[in-house]
């Protein structure tokens, strides 16, 4: 019997269950057949029968356990880490665990979203309780079968032991009885010192499939009768579709149809996730991706201008004008900053800039949609399936319960797939053509669609007294659609006189969250600025920061400071020690707090052919308990390399509203020989519940890099990208 064809017993509908939402009916499991369970762990003998214990768990008669991973997987490795948490409290042997991606199921799962580095932080308690609840039921079942008190039983690696009578029962033998028992009111969670799975390195559960090229991604999905769609969006921001002549394109071999769709029709109320600069599109539907990408060249499309054509020079001038003259929103004021600046011995003022950035996930946007009269099925890479379903429901006029969404593994997210315009577009194309379709963006579609990291400009001022003590601090920031300033982050709380101001620039270039939103810019600016302030004060950059933290620990200014100064100072002093930092060190240092985690880095740069190159990075991270050290190291290393790459090379620029970079021949991403040769990561062990890890290592490395460049060149860098442009080649 095939392991992914659930037997009759695994459809057991447990209507008696109440409380916690754990024991509901699970007929949706039939939708998971595209997940080839047997291939996930070929060394396992798959069970003949599965018993569904709860939404997260199926237990086979031979003790093999399937754990559903609820959240979307974008490369942050939650598909390994979240099931590890369940498995820990369930007390099973990780070798006997098979992981499957759960579909969108808001009745049984909470917060099925990949964003803000929050999956593990929010999932920690519920996932532990899920595992512990199932374990409790299995122990209760064993107590019944062995006719002993549950208190006399213990579990280990998927087996319930009664030491008193030297008897034992495997979870597989107990699952069907356990699934009929009442849920406990409360469960006891393990003492972290007894953890056997959490804190031990586990390999990525999809690694075998990845290295053998098995279908995993949205782009890989194929269905009987499915057609492909390619879209044509306006060539510039501020333009919209006027008319289309599709006669020639329609006549080409392999072309099925050409349709026009509108993702934001009159009366549609966009949610936050409906960012879309080009809601009205032309779509070509045909036999395969290449055919439709070719055929769309035969379309004769007329565009019209709906708002002014913007250029990068105009953007920069507007940001500077705002900083110079704009009336700002005061986000925080402590003491008398103006007075302190007027009496300062030294004032340091610097301005920092970063450009718009596309996300450039390696897997371009794509989505499968099959819209029928009575329901819709959507499958693909989406960080926010719940929000996509809301948008699709509104546009189709179809109840949410008739719309089924399955998330595929994603070839990168970085925030881009929080905004499901491509899923909406696929839905509307399927609705218009009445066939199941998969929309595939070309790289050019993807890079020029917008939803970019906003460009930012921030100006800092610091006042020092005659002893080099920081007496006032002023941050005034602006950006496209948002200000990058976090008013209550460090150094707020460390200085008596403090002012944080926000200004927002309007632009028709659409923007969205990009790995560590706002932090990805402001951390680098702030940490580069503090380096200069420390230098002006005649102090070591680490010692200068630690003095500020001392103030925040002993006598903080204000009550709204959103960081723990002791944890912050600790990562900084740890990185000083781990990196062997010395007086007059020629490396760059930075520390930052975001996504509830603390990161400090020391970075060594060198100049190669007149361009900066990173040699080595030391990194100390406090993200509380590390669930999976293997994945955690990988995330931190990736964030560092990603951050270095974008700070050195990343920029999308505009002329006449048109993105000037459209593919990797003109847009430069960091490459193998530009990555550091060594990254040394150390995690602080403090037993605190886990916090974010997918994003926090990226923001500070921009500052560490800027400071390291100064150490080796003697010149400060203020504008990203830091590296001079060069001829790109493939």
């Amino acid at each position, binding site marked *: 019997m095939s392991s992914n064809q659930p037997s009759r017993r695994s459809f057991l509908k447990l209507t008696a269950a109440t409380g916690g939402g754990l024991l509901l009916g699970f007929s949706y499991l039939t939708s998971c057949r595209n997940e080839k369970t047997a291939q996930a762990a070929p060394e396992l003998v798959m069970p003949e029968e599965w018993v569904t214990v709860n939404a997260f768990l199926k237990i086979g008669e031979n003790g093999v356990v399937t754990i559903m991973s609820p959240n979307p997987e974008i490369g942050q490795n939650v598909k390994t880490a979240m099931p590890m948490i369940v498995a820990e409290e369930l007390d099973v042997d990780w070798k006997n665990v098979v992981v499957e991606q759960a579909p969108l199921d808001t009745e049984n799962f909470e917060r099925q979203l990949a964003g803000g580095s929050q999956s593990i932080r929010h999932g920690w308690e519920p996932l532990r309780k899920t595992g512990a609840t199932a374990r409790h039921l299995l122990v209760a079942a064993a107590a019944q079968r062995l006719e002993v008190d549950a208190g006399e039983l213990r579990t280990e690696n998927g087996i319930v032991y009664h030491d008193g009578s030297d008897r034992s029962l495997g979870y597989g033998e107990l699952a069907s009885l356990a699934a009929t028992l009442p849920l406990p009111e409360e469960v006891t969670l393990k003492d972290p010192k007894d953890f056997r799975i959490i804190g031990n390195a586990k390999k990525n559960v999809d690694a075998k499939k990845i290295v053998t090229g098995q279908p995993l991604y949205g782009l890989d999905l194929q269905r009987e009768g499915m057609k492909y769609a390619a879209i044509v969006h306006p060539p510039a921001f501020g333009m919209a579709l006027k008319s289309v002549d599709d006669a020639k394109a329609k006549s080409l071999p392999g072309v099925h149809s050409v349709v026009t769709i509108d993702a934001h029709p009159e009366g549609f109320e966009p949610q936050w996730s409906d960012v879309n600069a080009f809601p009205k599109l032309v779509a070509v539907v045909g036999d395969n991706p290449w055919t439709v990408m070719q055929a769309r060249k035969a379309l004769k499309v007329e565009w019209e201008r709906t708002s002014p054509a913007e250029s990068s020079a105009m953007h920069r001038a507007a940001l500077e004008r705002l900083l110079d003259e704009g009336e700002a929103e005061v986000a925080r004021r402590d003491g008398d900053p103006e007075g302190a600046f007027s009496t300062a011995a030294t004032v340091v003022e610097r301005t920092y800039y970063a450009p718009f950035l596309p996300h450039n*996930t*390696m897997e371009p946007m794509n989505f499968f949609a099959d819209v029928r009269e009575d329901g819709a099925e959507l499958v693909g890479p989406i960080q926010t399936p719940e929000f996509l379903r809301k948008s699709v429901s509104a546009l189709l006029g179809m109840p949410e319960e008739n719309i089924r969404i399955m998330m595929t593994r994603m070839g990168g997210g970085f925030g881009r797939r929080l905004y499901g315009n491509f899923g909406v577009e696929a839905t509307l194309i399927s609705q218009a053509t009445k066939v199941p379709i998969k929309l595939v963006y070309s790289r050019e579609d993807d890079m020029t669609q917008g939803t970019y990291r906003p460009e930012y400009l921030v100006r800092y001022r610091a006042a020092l007294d005659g002893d080099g003590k920081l007496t006032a601090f002023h941050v005034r920031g602006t950006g496209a659609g948002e200000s990058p300033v976090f008013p209550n982050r460090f150094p707020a709380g460390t200085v008596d006189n403090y002012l944080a101001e926000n200004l927002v620039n309007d632009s028709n270039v659409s923007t969205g969250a990009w790995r560590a939103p706002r932090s990805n810019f402001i951390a680098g600016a702030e940490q580069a600025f503090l380096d200069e302030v420390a230098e002006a004060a005649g102090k070591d950059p680490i010692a200068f920061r630690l003095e500020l933290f001392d103030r925040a620990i002993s006598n903080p200014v204000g009550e709204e400071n959103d960081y723990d100064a002791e944890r912050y100072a600790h990562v900084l002093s740890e990185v000083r020690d781990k990196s062997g930092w010395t007086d007059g060190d020629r490396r760059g240092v930075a520390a930052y707090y975001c996504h509830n985690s603390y990161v400090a880095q020391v970075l060594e740069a060198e100049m190669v052919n007149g361009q900066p190159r990173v040699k080595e990075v030391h990194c100390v991270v406090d993200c509380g308990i590390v669930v999976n050290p293997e994945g955690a190291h990988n995330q931190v290393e990736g964030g560092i390399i990603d951050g270095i790459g974008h700070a050195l090379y990343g920029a999308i620029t505009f002329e006449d509203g048109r993105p000037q970079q459209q593919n990797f021949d003109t847009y430069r991403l960091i490459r193998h020989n530009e990555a*550091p040769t060594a990254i040394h990561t150390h995690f602080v062990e403090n037993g605190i519940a886990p916090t974010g890890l997918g994003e926090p290592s990226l923001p500070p490395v921009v500052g560490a890099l800027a400071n390291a460049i100064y150490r080796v060149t003697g010149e400060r860098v203020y504008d990203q990208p830091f590296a001079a442009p060069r001829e790109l080649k493939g």
Partner: protein
Amino acid sequence: MATINLTVNGQQRQVDVDPEMPLLWVLRDELQLVGTKYGCGIGSCGACTVHVDGIAMRSCNLPVGNLSGEAITTIEGLSENGDHPVQLAWLEHDVPQCGYCQAGQIMTAASLLANSPDPDDAEISASMNGNICRCGTYTRIHAAVKTAAKKLS
């Protein structure tokens, strides 16, 4: 449209397509070999790397009509059981994050090691430079290539 005979992963395959269609899309949509990925379509990112007569090439800009005589190997055919030394090294170093670019990275590395079994750091970097990884797994890729080289020598 034309009927084209291909040798893919040691098997004779026949497709009826426009000879201008790049090999990438033939592999993915005609032969259901989706391990080879689309990343840029202009040979700039390496996600679509396959071996043509043992040489790493970008399948996204190789017209399929030119390939009837050559032996094409994709990630699916790199080894019988996913146990090519490069694949094993990738598992040992737990290289993938999102994983999307890794088939191309592995095909490039396997080609490098087939031609230069004991490359130094500079040679590894130079050879792997055409394969982009947005997740930033380069240090692990580098270490995995070295591990695979040791296993092969």
